[in-house]
């Protein structure tokens, strides 16, 4: 125990003297978390809090264009600016970034709508034996012209056009019913019919998986993601530490001593696992205490499963330590360890969903992401922070991390043994 304690002291002294390593493990991830969260938070707010800017050129001579404009305005989704632009001008304005979207309502919008609904109601009534068809074919409903900024994602554009289409449908249906009532000798649609028609559709009852849990936001994603990234960046410090011991001859000296290399390796692991725990405490602490002061969402921890949180932190840290030891054992020089270590962690981060959540990745990348230990660390944090933190959800990522760590430890052992260092 005394030797173990002295080894831990030695590792501690080496660590605190490694200013570059400490910066990479504590300051760099904090900056990354701050910068990326601020950037993503702005984007998140833009989508969720800000309205979509829309230039509306209403040239309609009737009242339906105005009705559509009012409906879009009252939906709360669009910030509308009116003008009398021609379609080409509207297109140019959107292209120049004056607004994200533009809507051109032509002069004949109301007329075309009336004609179309009249023809349609005639046809329906004739089919029902309540009137005679005029024999004309349907002239078609006419159109509005929609413009969007090229930077808008396709699914986002689709959502906007669907909103416009929904409002158009309401106008069309109301117009058609009015026409039918007129043709049946009723001057106006009865109020209860109109109310029922506008509000009586099938309701969508929405339940979010995060309903009773912290709301997903940029902090909830970025803080665990970049903390995991930082943990794995200990490869620079720990990998170098091991390479220097191998290359400098310390391992050989230790082999000639009445001691065991296992003590040395174990003490390294204990110290660096604690470093991982400290990283989490430091970054999570900043995200919990300081983020609200910076106008960022506060990190909400999974209070329901504190043991789970501890285990996830320890297992993530142990995985990072095992990976770093493996690279340190394999690398012959500090340059190899640092270069390969840094690049491999960046690749693991990229495919593991640290930068972009893995659910938005193409299928093959999603499969590939399962090879990244960072993915499973992040998954276990997601289970804690966004999915209630139940043990059933934690079991899979934790098992995978354990297997990954044991493989790394085994490879380190075999390599050190082959090099006759242990």
């Amino acid at each position, binding site marked *: 125990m005394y*030797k173990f304690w002295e080894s831990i002291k030695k590792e501690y*002294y*080496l660590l605190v003297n490694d200013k570059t390593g400490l910066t990479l493990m504590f300051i760099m991830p904090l900056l990354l978390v701050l910068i990326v969260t601020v950037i993503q938070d702005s984007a998140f707010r833009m989508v969720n809090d800000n309205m979509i800017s829309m230039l509306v050129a209403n040239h309609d001579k009737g009242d339906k264009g105005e009705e559509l404009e009012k409906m879009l305005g009252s939906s709360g989704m669009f910030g509308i600016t009116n003008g009398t632009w021609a379609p080409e001008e509207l297109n140019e304005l959107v292209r120049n970034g004056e607004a994200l979207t533009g809507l051109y309502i032509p002069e004949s919008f109301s007329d075309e709508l009336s004609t179309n609904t009249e023809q349609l109601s005639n046809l329906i009534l004739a089919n029902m034996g309540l009137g005679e068809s005029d024999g004309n074919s349907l002239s078609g409903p006419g159109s509005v012209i929609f413009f969007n900024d090229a930077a808008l994602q396709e699914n986002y554009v689709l959502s906007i056009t669907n909103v416009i289409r929904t409002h158009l449908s309401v106008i069309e249906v109301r117009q058609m019913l009015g026409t039918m009532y007129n043709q049946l000798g009723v001057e106006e649609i009865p109020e209860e019919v109109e109310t029922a028609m506008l509000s009586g559709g099938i309701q969508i009852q929405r339940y979010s998986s995060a309903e009773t849990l912290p709301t997903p936001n940029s902090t909830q994603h970025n803080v665990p993601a970049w903390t995991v990234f930082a943990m794995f960046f200990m490869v620079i410090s720990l990998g170098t530490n091991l390479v220097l011991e191998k290359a*400098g001859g310390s391992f050989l000296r230790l082999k000639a*001593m*009445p001691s065991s290399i296992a003590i040395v390796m174990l003490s390294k692991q204990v110290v660096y696992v604690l470093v991982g725990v400290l990283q989490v405490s430091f970054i999570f602490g900043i995200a919990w205490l300081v983020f609200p002061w910076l106008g960022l969402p506060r990190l909400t921890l999974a209070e329901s499963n504190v043991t789970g949180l501890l285990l996830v932190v320890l297992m993530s840290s142990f995985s990072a330590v095992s990976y770093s030891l493996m690279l340190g054992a394999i690398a012959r020089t500090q340059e190899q360890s640092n270069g390969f270590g840094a690049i491999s962690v960046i690749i693991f981060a990229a495919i593991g969903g640290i930068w972009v959540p893995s659910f938005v990745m193409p299928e093959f990348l999603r499969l590939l992401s399962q090879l990244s230990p960072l993915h499973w660390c992040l998954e276990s944090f997601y289970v804690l922070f966004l999915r209630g933190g139940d043990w059933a959800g934690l079991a899979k990522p934790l098992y995978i991390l354990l297997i990954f760590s044991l493989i790394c430890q085994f490879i380190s052992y075999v390599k050190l043994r082959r090099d*006759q260092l242990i």
Partner: protein
Amino acid sequence: MTDLLIDIENVSKKYTGADRYSLKSVNLKIYEGEKFGFFGPNGAGKTTLISILCQILPFNEGKVTYYLGSKPIEFHSIRQKIGFVPQDLALYEDLTARQNISYFGAMYNMKPNEVRKRSVELFELLGLSAVADRKVRTFSGGMKRRLNLIAGLIHEPAVVFLDEPTVGVDIQSRNAMLSFLKEINGKGTSLIYTSHHLDEAERICDRVAIIDHGDIIASGSIPQLLGENDVEDLTGLLIKLTGKEFRDNV
């Protein structure tokens, strides 16, 4: 001659993947209190033999027995009795001299106060007292070599293996180290030594063994070997026995 310290019997070593033996049936006896030197060209097998004797490397065939006071030492106790001063500066550059020695002392099962007392003594003897709390990174080559020596001697071993202990040091450091080694030998510590500084070897060693191609090709006291081979010094002896060709280990 005093009691037997190390008995090396038919020791052979072949590295994994190598096409030849690095040591071939080496037989040698080293006695307590001796200052014994291994010499030979690069790649002759000196470091391999020292590594085997320090239990750093396993060997393929043969037997090595350690004795203390004519009694064989248990296998697991050997490492406590030996000191190893490797050719590489096996020190932690980001630790201070004192932190390095405290750590190595602990690995030799020394209690903290024992390490403290002994290290103060050794720092003083080897001129490192004033810099004991400085990081090794800031040391000169000579200072590092002296600290390397202290790390191998902190636990007062019965025998010390010195693999090129003075390589690359200034004359003052070398002089201090050699005087110190003579002093501890006078107190009973056996020295097993290898170096390319043959003048230094002549100053230190009582007996030497010349190794080449994994064989001990000659062994005995220096005057005896010089007389038998009709040469004036160890350099002449080595050239005569191992030839003039370069040994570049390619």
